[in-house]
């Protein structure tokens, strides 16, 4: 097989790939931020000791974690226009889907994070007069985040890879950009090879960063 990469030029990257990359990165960041906020709330619900809060949170987390992501993406894309009465577009649909989906995973990470903070810290917060909310905000969650930072970032790397699944609803992301190039230039093998390398380089460098961070955190402790 003769591989020919000569069709890949700067112009091509700007025209086809750059927009897709921006969307993939943005989707990752939005899903991470939304997922962490929602996930933290879910984790606090599951640890609240109040059954009326624990039960729905557990149901949510366990249900989402039992469904393949690509199906959630599809169902959300098909159902939401029905519910709100108008189409919202593949890209916007994916934002909601990923926040909802990732929240379930971040919830489990944050639950472990909160549990990693010794109970005495909560007592100390209460003892100086902080409320439950203040104790969480100023004492427990900052420590939980710090303890869980490497895991949170690793999950974000997985999340970045998972964003490629939006091909199922035709959203224009990084992978889609390469796919279009492959079709337009009739060079699918070369473009998918390049796409693989691009995903690898991004994810591998992020992993390296996480590893360095992990070492740093260990030193601080």
């Amino acid at each position: 097989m003769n591989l020919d990469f000569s069709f890949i030029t700067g112009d091509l990257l700007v025209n086809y790939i750059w927009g897709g990359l921006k969307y993939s990165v943005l989707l990752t960041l939005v899903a991470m931020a939304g997922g962490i906020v929602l996930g933290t709330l879910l984790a606090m619900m599951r640890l609240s000791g109040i059954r009326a809060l624990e039960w729905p949170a557990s149901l949510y987390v366990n249900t989402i974690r039992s469904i393949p992501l690509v199906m959630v993406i599809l169902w959300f894309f098909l159902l939401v226009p029905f519910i709100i009465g108008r189409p919202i577009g593949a890209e916007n649909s994916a934002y909601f889907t990923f926040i909802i989906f990732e929240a379930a995973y971040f919830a489990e990470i944050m639950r472990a994070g909160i549990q990693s903070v010794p109970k005495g810290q909560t007592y100390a917060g209460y003892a100086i007069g902080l409320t439950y909310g203040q104790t969480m905000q100023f004492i427990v969650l900052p420590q939980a985040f710090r303890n869980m930072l490497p895991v949170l970032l690793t999950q974000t790397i997985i999340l970045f890879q998972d964003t490629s699944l939006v091909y199922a609803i035709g959203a224009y992301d990084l992978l889609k950009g390469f796919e279009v190039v492959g079709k337009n230039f009739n060079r699918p093998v070369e473009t998918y090879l390049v796409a693989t390398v691009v995903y690898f380089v991004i994810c591998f460098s992020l992993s390296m960063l996480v590893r360095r961070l992990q070492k740093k955190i260990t030193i601080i402790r």
Partner: protein
Amino acid sequence: MIQIQNVSKWYGSFQVLTDCTTAIQKGEVVVVCGPSGSGKSTLIKTVNALEPIDNGDILVDGTSVVHPKTDLPKLRSKVGMVFQHFELFPHLTVTENLTLAQIKVLQRNQEEAKNRGLKILERVGLSAHKDKFPSQLSGGQQQRVAIARALSMDPIVMLFDEPTSALDPEMVGEVLDVMVQLANEGMTMICVTHEMGFAKRVSDRVIFMDQGRIVEDCQKDVFFGDSDSRTPRAQDFLRKILQH
């Protein structure tokens, strides 16, 4: 200032506190001692409702800790507590440890809180460490910061829960010195401790607990001096602890 009235508490079917009643006056220094598992730590934690009680009542400055309408955070902000394992906030500097609750609970501004905190830090002799993190301090220094953290809230009473038990022996003295100084300044204190030297030197009263009950509650001189009139359980405890 503090009334503990017929307090009982169960962990499941196990009764940790049985009908405990005592009162602490303003300015009084009370040492609570007893064998491990006797409920002394549990009792002291009921005073600021870190441990809920099943029966009886506790009044702090006239406010009941069990009444559902009681603003517990407000009540706790007036009661300083020092823990066996310090429980400083590891992600905050010494100064931040001292100012957090002043700002969030007492609504003091940053400047006020910092001034108050640093003044108290000076009293416990740790001004030089104000920008360090707790992990950079020795155990004794951490416990002194923990005492300073409690004091920066201007509490009306201080609770000490085995403040020297987790310390290396050579660091016990520096923490006890701060406690002695506090007692001499007239602070109301309840101390769960095995430090009988401290009890003899500065306490007014000694409470001896065994199996969840207050077995002895008497003036220091009576407790240590008139040993023949003590219960056999207290005599036995004292013999064991004073041997060394």
